[in-house]
């Protein structure tokens, strides 16, 4: 049995020397710890929070932000991390999300989707999203319940989200509560709760990590001297901890190329971006709501550009979903009547639905987090976030909607109105996915990435970064299941290097 230890009860000055220290008990940290369960390595998981929300701990997230939501409002700092408030939306990233795309500056991973595919089944199992039914598998399942909306031949296809569901119908899986017993049952693992890493300390020559400084909010402090360290604090905090650990490398660890904290991205979710009319009126419920298809699979349909079309139209990733029925104005009714008549289609029962979407942003080095002079309760510099979304991001998505509209007409199943043209219209109903991506980006060239293709910080043999902060380009899929797959790959790598 492992131990969950409240670090606030540990004597100051205590020192630990595990084989591996995992900083952060979110989905990446927990998945990594569990993946090392069958090894002889001694693992210490350091979680800043406890088992439940604590306002004093949460407040350490606070910072300044421009164009974004409060930094202490869209994250959760206790065991389970972001899975304590996620929506459970899952979908594997597309092949083109990994590719170098000449129309997407700074895009491309050091490897393709095929590298992650062996890890997707286990990731899917950990998020408890049921049988793998994305894409064509979902088509078959959904069609057996109700007809899919036909789309004419073109660049947009129907794809599927699946949804995490914890045991006993609790939705979705919250990793801290769900896997606490698994972690407790892991003989090689110790979990310190309420243990905040306040600095990653390098050897004097800067060639490796020497130790971690750990502190609690009740005044205790400790040293952890691991052979290897994995930073798994989330897409914003990973960058923060590297930047504040600047005693040896004055610009922060891994920041020789001034990349730590840059290229931040989220998936913007503008609502009511378009109105889709279905001439026949009926639309299967899995378009607007998640639907239980059996085998543990809960599906919701989305419209996505194919990998090929993304290149042809020079667009980014997007996932367009049906939101709710809406009424048409007189011009809308006239457009439907005129067009349906010209197509020879009966639109007497037509119904309209609003569409929303999740978008991939173009990587931007100026969308970033930086340190401020303000300090948190443990003396760590707070962050400033500058978030932006470009007109080109909207223009690219508009082309996606135009193609979807064309394909609805081609199948004579419906038509589409784009509701947003000006920046103000796009921003009017803007939500964010709270997907924190890109701040410690992956690239094999240390001038272009913070970590290499194994998620190891360039120049440091014993420091790794887990989670979506290493995503160098993003796609539109929700990151949790993908970052878990990437973490499981990291686990295999770490097993090999630590052996």
């Amino acid at each position, binding site marked *: 049995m492992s131990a969950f230890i409240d670090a606030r009860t540990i004597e100051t000055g205590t020192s630990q020397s595990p084989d591996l220290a995992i900083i952060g008990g979110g989905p990446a940290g927990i998945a990594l710890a569990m993946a090392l369960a069958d090894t002889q390595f001694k693992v210490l998981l350091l979680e800043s929070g406890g088992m439940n929300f604590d306002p004093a701990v949460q407040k350490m997230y606070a910072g300044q932000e421009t164009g974004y939501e409060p930094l202490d409002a869209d994250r959760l700092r206790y065991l389970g991390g972001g899975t304590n408030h996620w929506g459970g939306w899952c979908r594997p990233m597309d092949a083109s999300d990994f590719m170098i795309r000449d129309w997407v500056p700074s895009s491309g991973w050091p490897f393709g989707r095929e590298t992650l595919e062996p890890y997707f089944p286990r990731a899917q199992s950990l998020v408890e999203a049921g049988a793998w039914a994305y894409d064509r598998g979902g088509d078959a399942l959904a069609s057996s319940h109700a007809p899919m909306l036909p789309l004419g031949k073109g660049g947009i296809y129907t794809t599927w989200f699946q949804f995490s569901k914890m045991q006993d119908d609790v939705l979705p899986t919250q990793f801290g509560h769900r896997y606490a017993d698994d972690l407790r049952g892991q003989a090689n693992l110790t979990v310190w709760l309420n243990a905040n890493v306040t600095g990653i300390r390098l050897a004097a020559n800067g060639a490796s990590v020497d130790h971690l400084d750990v502190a609690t909010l009740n005044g205790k402090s400790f040293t952890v001297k691991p052979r290897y360290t994995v930073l798994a604090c989330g897409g914003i905090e990973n960058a923060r901890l590297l930047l504040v650990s600047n005693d040896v490398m004055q610009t922060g660890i891994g920041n020789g190329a001034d990349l730590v904290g840059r290229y931040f991205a989220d998936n913007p979710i503008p609502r009511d971006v378009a109105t889709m009319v279905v001439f026949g009126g009926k639309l299967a419920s899995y378009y607007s709501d998640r639907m239980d298809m059996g085998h543990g699979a809960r599906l919701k349909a989305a419209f996505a550009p194919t990998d090929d079309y993304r290149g042809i139209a020079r667009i980014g990733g997007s996932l367009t979903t049906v939101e709710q029925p809406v009424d048409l104005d007189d011009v809308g009714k006239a457009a439907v009547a*005129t067009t349906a008549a010209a*197509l020879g289609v009966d639109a007497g029962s037509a119904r309209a639905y609003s569409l929303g979407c999740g978008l991939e942003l173009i990587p931007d080095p100026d969308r970033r987090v930086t340190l401020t002079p303000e300090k948190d309760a443990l003396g760590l510099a707070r962050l400033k976030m500058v978030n932006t979304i470009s007109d080109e991001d909207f223009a690219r998505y508009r082309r996606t909607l135009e193609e979807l509209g064309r394909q609805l*007409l081609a199948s004579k199943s419906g038509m589409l109105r784009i509701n947003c043209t000006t920046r103000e219209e796009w921003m009017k109903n803007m939500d964010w996915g709270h997907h924190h991506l890109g701040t410690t980006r992956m690239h094999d060239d240390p001038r272009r990435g913070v970590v290499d293709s194994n998620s190891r910080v360039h120049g440091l043999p014993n420091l790794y970064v887990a989670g979506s902060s290493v995503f160098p380009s993003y796609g539109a899929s929700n990151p949790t299941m993908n970052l878990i797959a990437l973490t499981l790959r990291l686990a295999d790598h770490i097993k090999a290097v630590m052996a």
Partner: protein
Amino acid sequence: MKRRTMIAGGAVAGLAAAGAWRLGLLGGYAPTPYDDLLDQLDARDDAILLGQKATDMPEARALADELRSHIGEAGLAAAVSGDIAAGRMTEVAGWILPQTVAQMAALAAKA
């Protein structure tokens, strides 16, 4: 009745009928030089309303010339299908429309 009176009476009646058409009193539309095209619209009132939103369209005569050339012998439905297949789409008030539909609506509004 003198022949001159008969001609004058007929002209007045014709003008009155045209006016009534324009006012919708006779349930149809005033004759236009484009009726060979507009008669293909099953929902002409709707097309007029939609067409009023179609800005950046040529004048009626030029539109009609283009439509006649495009629709040709195949007819409206074939032209519309051809637009969709070829990606000839036009946006009117946000609606993604086959170009021919948008042009027909614009012509209906201008006629």
